[in-house]
């Protein structure tokens, strides 16, 4: 029954959003609107540990939440000027298209369709993810290639089912899927041993492991990632000023990591002789004016939110329960994909 309804809901939101699309797209409307109301309305996950989740006092934190906070810091010099709208996977695109939110930072994969036909603009990827497999450590598996004949628990609703079928077919292996619609039931079935492997985005597997298992070492995430999931914040098409601000707010965090600036050292760096650092922190003016905000916009981000490495380690890396290695999310200088264009 529930699924009939959700399918109908998709159909309904599709038609609603189709109506909404025609009414948007005034240059600068979002940027000016945000400035006027004094806060950023940010669409986030309903609760995904490490990316966006409220604590017991209702305070949101996570890698995606830091993105919202960075934009607010750049705009207002205050990272707290954010209001959060928790969104389900089905609600997220219509919420942005209809103008309900200004920025969508909700572990959303950048795809061609979403970037074009759905009327969105994606800003740089803030987390490179991919679909992986989690298995019990007792099985002693080292590679997903050893999963021939396995039973795999799959969550429906995205491309997950097709990705896993493609992977097994490409490697001439067979498997039995167990497809359960509700996250909790699926996880319960997996941890009860109904399936040999659980498949989802690697970051989500780590989040599930952190939340459900007493000893995380009992379960391993196999090294193979079988799909590309570049999780990227998104904005509506038609407001380049706003797109620019969100884009460069993220790049500022990456640039700060590259230059070794942290929220602790940024004050001391104000006197740095490095011309790149001077431009980034607004000591040499120009960047702020070009973006339409105060010259100290990047300083505010680094001071209040931190650089990308700080945000990563605090939310999903070594300093968190997820313990995700940097992997593809390391700086390009360390073999990763994080690369900020020159900020001048």
């Amino acid at each position, binding site marked *: 029954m529930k699924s*009939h309804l959700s399918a109908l809901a998709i159909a309904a939101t599709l038609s609603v959003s189709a109506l909404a699309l025609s009414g948007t797209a005034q240059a600068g409307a979002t940027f000016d609107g945000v400035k006027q109301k004094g806060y950023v309305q940010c669409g986030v996950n309903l609760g995904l540990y490490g990316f966006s989740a409220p604590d017991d006092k209702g305070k949101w934190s996570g890698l995606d939440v830091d993105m919202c906070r960075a934009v607010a810091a750049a705009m207002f010099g205050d990272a707290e000027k954010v209001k959060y709208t928790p969104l389900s996977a089905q609600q997220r695109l219509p919420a942005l298209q209809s103008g309900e939110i200004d920025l969508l930072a909700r572990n959303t994969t950048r795809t061609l369709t979403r970037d074009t036909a759905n009327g969105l603009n994606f800003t740089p990827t803030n987390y490179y993810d991919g679909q992986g497999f989690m298995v019990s450590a007792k099985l002693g598996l080292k590679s997903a290639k050893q999963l021939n004949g396995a039973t795999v628990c799959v969550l429906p609703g995205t491309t997950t089912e097709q990705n896993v079928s493609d992977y097994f077919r490409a490697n001439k292996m067979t498997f039995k899927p*167990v497809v359960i619609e509700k996250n909790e039931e699926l996880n319960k*079935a997996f941890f*009860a041993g109904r399936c040999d492997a659980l498949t989802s985005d690697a970051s989500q597997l780590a989040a599930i492991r952190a939340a459900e298992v007493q000893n995380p070492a009992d379960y391993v995430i196999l090294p193979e990632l079988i799909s590309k999931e570049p999780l990227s914040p998104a904005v509506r098409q038609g407001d380049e000023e706003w797109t620019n601000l969100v884009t460069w707010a993220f790049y500022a965090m990456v640039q700060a990591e590259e230059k070794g600036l942290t929220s602790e050292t940024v004050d001391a760096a104000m006197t740095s002789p490095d011309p790149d650092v001077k431009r980034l922190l607004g000591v040499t003016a120009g960047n702020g004016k070009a973006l339409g905000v105060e010259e100290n916009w990047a300083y505010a981000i680094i001071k209040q939110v931190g650089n990308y490495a700080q945000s990563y380690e605090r939310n999903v890396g070594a300093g968190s329960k997820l313990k995700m290695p940097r992997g593809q999310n390391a700086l390009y200088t360390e073999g990763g994909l994080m690369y900020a264009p020159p900020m001048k």
Partner: protein
Amino acid sequence: MTNPVQALNSARVRGWLYQALFLACTLAVAWYLVSNTLTNLANRGVATGLGFLHREAGFEIGESLLSYTASDTYLKALVVGLLNTLAVSAAGVVLATVLGVLIGIGRLSSNWMVNRFATLYVETVRNVPLLLQLVVWYTILNRLPSPREALEILPGIFLSNRGMKFPVLVEHAGHGWILLALVAGIAAAFAVVRHGRRRREATGKPFPTLPAAIAAVLLPPALAFIATGAPLAFDVPVLAGFNFEGGGSVTPEFTALLIGLSVYTAGFIAEIVRSGILAVPHGQTEAGLALGLSPGKILRLVILPQALRVIVPPLTSQYLNLTKNSSLAVAIGYPDLVSVSNTSANQTGQVVEAVAMMMLVYLIISLAISGFMNWYNRRVALVTR
């Protein structure tokens, strides 16, 4: 004969007019909804139509009555889902009926234990949401040991959290003959039953119908079995890699759904059976007693035939409920029509088509069950002589 204004005073003309207006309004609303949806989908650049049915599905299905792989079409995937729905519904209807009749009779039993137990059963299963019951059954089945520590309940039959694995017969040319002999046996049994009834009606002498019919059914295949050289080779499940290989299997998802649907619906059927039996006047029982029939025979020959005409119509709606409730399968991972349709809709983005097809299929199934039950109802209805 009259002018238009006078015609409006005629009840018949106004009746027609109102009906025409109502029909026009309904059609206009339907047209608006369809065209609005199509326009908006077109604006969004969403493809419409049923062309996707012939594209490669690209996803696996956990269990299937046909041989299915990810390289088959969406159409085949949907058929697999439909067959899964029909399989669990058909098995559920049979099981729920048997269980429901037993519990319903138990509710009327003069044995205190049986009576109270049946009451407890009915009150419990009817008043706990079905979804919750399904999750409970599924959780229980998932608590069974892993394949490596599977319980061997009977030689060759293994119970684990991957389901029940059992040996199946290896195909042999002789099986066709045995099957043929079985069909012949069933036909012979019908003849025996008819002969027995005729003799009883003509002479009043009882005829051992049941033993004779059983013998008629079983003897020919047994003879054929011996004649073809007793082809009895079993494909026994063995542990290999992650799971058992070979043999047949029933998954925990199917079992949990079947038990859940049957147990739940049986609660309602029991009440229907009870009310049906109570609807037969007590004088009928007394008349049976006066004729010297045993209580079992009274129930079978006097009460149930009369109770059936009260039971069948509400029973139909319980069968429909069970079939429609099988769509809760998505909650526990049984790949039924809804589950497969949802995945197809997600992958193709053609949600409207998928939902429309699902609705149409459930409508057809429900109408077919209704049609069959109405036919059966006419058969058991009392014929006034």
